């Protein structure tokens, strides 16, 4: 029975010119978006690989110099582009692409792409995620707003109910019919996405991530289908059903996210760059400054060192004191920056939790959060990259300072490493992408909420179908 009803919905929608027009338009846009982002991904990932190689060869090819001068000269880490960004590029355009790695400080990633793009990029970007998260629900509304209300208006609802079909079966049949239509449209697109994914340089867990992304989307579509069926069952007129459903979409996709963005800022304000810098400066002054041997902290450190080695001057130490004090200062600086960065990141996480909490009136936020988490284009993935770049910076600078300490004399700033290949032998930056096991704990609450939405909306839809009156 359910199958019959589903078939009827399917055929009827296919005959509707409005649906045909919108579906073709949406499909065309999805394909456009996929192709464009595939092209973009291929280009950008090559660029980043190349850039990373160039940066390394620039490091290795730098003129012979004192290792600590090399630490000031610095190098760059480029953020690799995750392959799933071809489905959802998340926050990638809003976060810097390169981090300058130098001695003494942890720099923030620089050059957000959004600042170089035309203004229209701020409106909306035609990415597959945009079409899948914002536009497909609209198509669902279009398919489903009239499933009960139109029949009521045409008088066929009474007819159907008099045939002995239970209202629940009727509801399930309508839901199944919409699913059938939706899947017949989406399966080819999602398949194409999978094809692109397989064609590119993907990590083993990327396929699982893609599968989860699809699951999240399907749950989300389920919510829209259920809500549409429920509203259609209650609405006396089709246009009321349509307007209410579009209102739901606008609230979920447009209004709540922006409202929450501002609320989260009010609840958990981020420090200004000035405050951030001055906090760091204050904390730095409390430790050893490698470039200022006269500071109080440096003196205390020096005295304790002289005592430990039982000598009366730094010249008599068995190693170059300059290298050690640089490294000691560096270790203090590293902690100061790491703390500041963590504090900022924690504020971001608090703000994201506000977004997550607002999901009780917006399933769209959940999907947005989940989709970029799974695609590794969210804040966490970026933070993870920044952390790895920082770890690398610390290791590199340590190697440089220790070379100074172990192989040169105190006061000899003209020292250059004897080994011509010294810079070539320095540690290399290898980025390890965030494993799925690390993403899941962060994604779990949102996923749970989404399941909640799915279940509740399904219950509401069936209950509404049961209560249906003519």
């Amino acid at each position, binding site marked *: 029975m359910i199958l019959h009803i589903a078939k009827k919905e399917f055929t009827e929608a296919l005959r509707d010119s409005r649906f045909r027009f919108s579906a073709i338009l949406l499909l065309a846009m999805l394909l456009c978006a996929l192709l464009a982002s595939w092209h973009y991904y291929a280009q950008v990932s090559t660029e980043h690989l190349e850039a990373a190689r160039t940066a390394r060869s620039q490091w290795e090819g730098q*003129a012979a110099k004192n290792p600590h001068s090399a630490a000031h000269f610095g190098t760059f880490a480029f953020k690799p582009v995750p392959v799933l960004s071809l489905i959802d590029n998340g926050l990638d355009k809003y976060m810097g692409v390169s981090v300058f790695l130098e001695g003494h400080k942890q720099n923030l990633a620089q050059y957000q792409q959004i600042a170089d793009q035309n203004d229209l990029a701020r409106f909306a970007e035609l990415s597959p995620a945009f079409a899948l998260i914002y536009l497909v629900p609209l198509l669902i509304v279009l398919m489903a707003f009239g499933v009960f209300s139109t029949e009521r208006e045409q008088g066929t609802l009474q007819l159907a109910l008099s045939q002995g079909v239970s209202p629940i079966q009727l509801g399930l049949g309508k839901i199944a019919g919409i699913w059938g239509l939706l899947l017949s449209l989406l399966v080819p697109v999602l398949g194409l996405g999978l094809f692109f994914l397989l064609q590119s340089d993907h990590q083993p867990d990327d396929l699982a991530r893609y599968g989860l992304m699809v699951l999240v989307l399907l749950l989300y579509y389920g919510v829209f289908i259920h809500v549409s069926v429920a509203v259609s069952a209650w609405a006396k007129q089709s246009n009321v059903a349509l307007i209410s459903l579009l209102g739901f979409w606008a609230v979920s996709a447009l209004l709540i*996210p922006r409202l929450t963005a501002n609320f989260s800022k009010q609840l958990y304000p981020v420090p200004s760059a000035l405050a951030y810098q001055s906090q760091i400066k204050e904390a730095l002054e409390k430790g050893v400054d490698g470039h200022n041997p006269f500071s109080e902290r440096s003196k205390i450190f020096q005295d304790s060192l002289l005592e430990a080695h039982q000598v009366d001057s730094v010249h008599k130490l068995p190693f170059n004191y300059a290298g050690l004090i640089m490294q000691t200062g560096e270790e203090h600086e590293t902690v100061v920056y790491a703390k500041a960065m963590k504090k900022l990141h924690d504020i971001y996480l608090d703000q994201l939790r506000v977004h997550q909490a607002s999901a009780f009136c917006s399933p769209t936020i959940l999907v947005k959060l989940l989709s970029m988490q799974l695609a590794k284009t969210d804040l966490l993935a970026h933070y993870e990259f920044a952390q790895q770049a920082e770890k690398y910076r610390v290791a590199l600078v340590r190697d440089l300072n220790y070379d100074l300490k172990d192989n040169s004399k105190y006061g000899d700033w003209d020292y250059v490493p004897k080994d011509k290949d010294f810079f070539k032998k320095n540690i290399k930056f290898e980025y390890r992408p965030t494993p799925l096991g690390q993403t899941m704990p962060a994604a779990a609450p949102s996923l749970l909420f989404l399941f909640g939405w799915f279940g509740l909306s399904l219950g509401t839809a069936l209950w509404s179908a049961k209560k249906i009156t003519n």
Partner: protein
Amino acid sequence: MLSFIYFEFKALVAGPFTAILAFLLLSMALFAAYNGHQRVAKQRATLREVNQKSEDFYAKNRLLLDSIEKGLRKPVETWYKDPTNPLPMSAFRGAGRYATLPPAPLAVISTGQSDIFPYYTKVALGDENAADDNQSFENPFNTATGQFDLAFVLTFILPLFIVALGYNVLSAEREQGTLLLLLSMPINIKYWMLHKMWFRYGVLFLSTVAIVSFSLAVFGVTLAQPAFAWLLLSIGLYTLFWFGLCFGINLLGRSSANNALMLLGAWLFFTLLVPSLANLTATALYPVPSRVQYVNALRAAQNKAEQEKEGILVAFYSKNPRFVRKKQEADKTWRDWWRENLAEGDYLAQLTTQTKLKFDTQAQVQRGFANWFRYLSPTIMMQNALNQLAGTDTQTYLQFHQRTAEFEQRWSAYFKAKFLNDEKLTTKDFERFPTY
């Protein structure tokens, strides 16, 4: 006519619908204005802070110099703390002056690009961002989501309200069966509908104006200014467009549901589809060169300057024979070191100017191309207009950047000349420092 207005008014206020819409609009406008007010207040406070910072620095050093000139204090021995020395007064250790972009009088209405581009930057000798203290630390997720500002309410939400008020003006009469009644009256149905639309337009426009004015006035924005008149004009035209669209679609004589669909399709088309397709086209046809390559190009220039150091120095000393080059590193004083450093800096600037120019030009070409698409969407035009009125459009920030670069040139030239001529700064010079 009067009776028409009377009945129309009664019909409009009869249900709770209109009241709900008005209430929603008012609360959204107030919240949006509050957000804008917070943002602008923060901006003002930050600008005060940075200006104070550099003022304090120069006031302190001027006072010190004054005492030295009057013989009350001994000259400062340490060169990098000496207020007569052009270098510590222009290049490092807190020296430098901030270039600032104060918020426009109507800045409250639109966040625009203000969450992406810096509005202040510290200019020091040879450096346009000497303190590196002007990044936005806002959560990228929030920035990407967009702000709840008046511009959002006016460009995105208001059209939805108009659609809700106007989608069934004619079709409802048909569906309720009152159209026949109307047709039996001695009136032209199109004129009747036009009147009805004009009336609704008037009510909506006036309420919007009242709500926007009230929301702005609550947060202390002066309404008696030309920009505000432009704001009203923009709202008037933009809402007129949407009412016109409703009118046209009603005339097609389809059902209410069909009208609603078409109007929401139009909304989607103008607010999301045109901008996103235009952006896609612009990025595909005129891609901005990649920043990662840009970073590497700058680094390559740095390497080149390093390798050609010897040549640069030889050229510098032959051009400036009054300076004698010291062979041993150990013999070099801070003066020698800075002279050579500045000479290298000049050469590096020459190398990088081309790279920067190429990048900026290509970005500008893409912006120019994308800008053509605004004629396809009143929503883009409205957003642009509001950004311009708020002084938060891209061009304002690019001009700010441009003027900052010019200021840096003036600042650097002034102090470099003093340094290379071994001049000492006097308190009178402190009055003549280049200003932004």
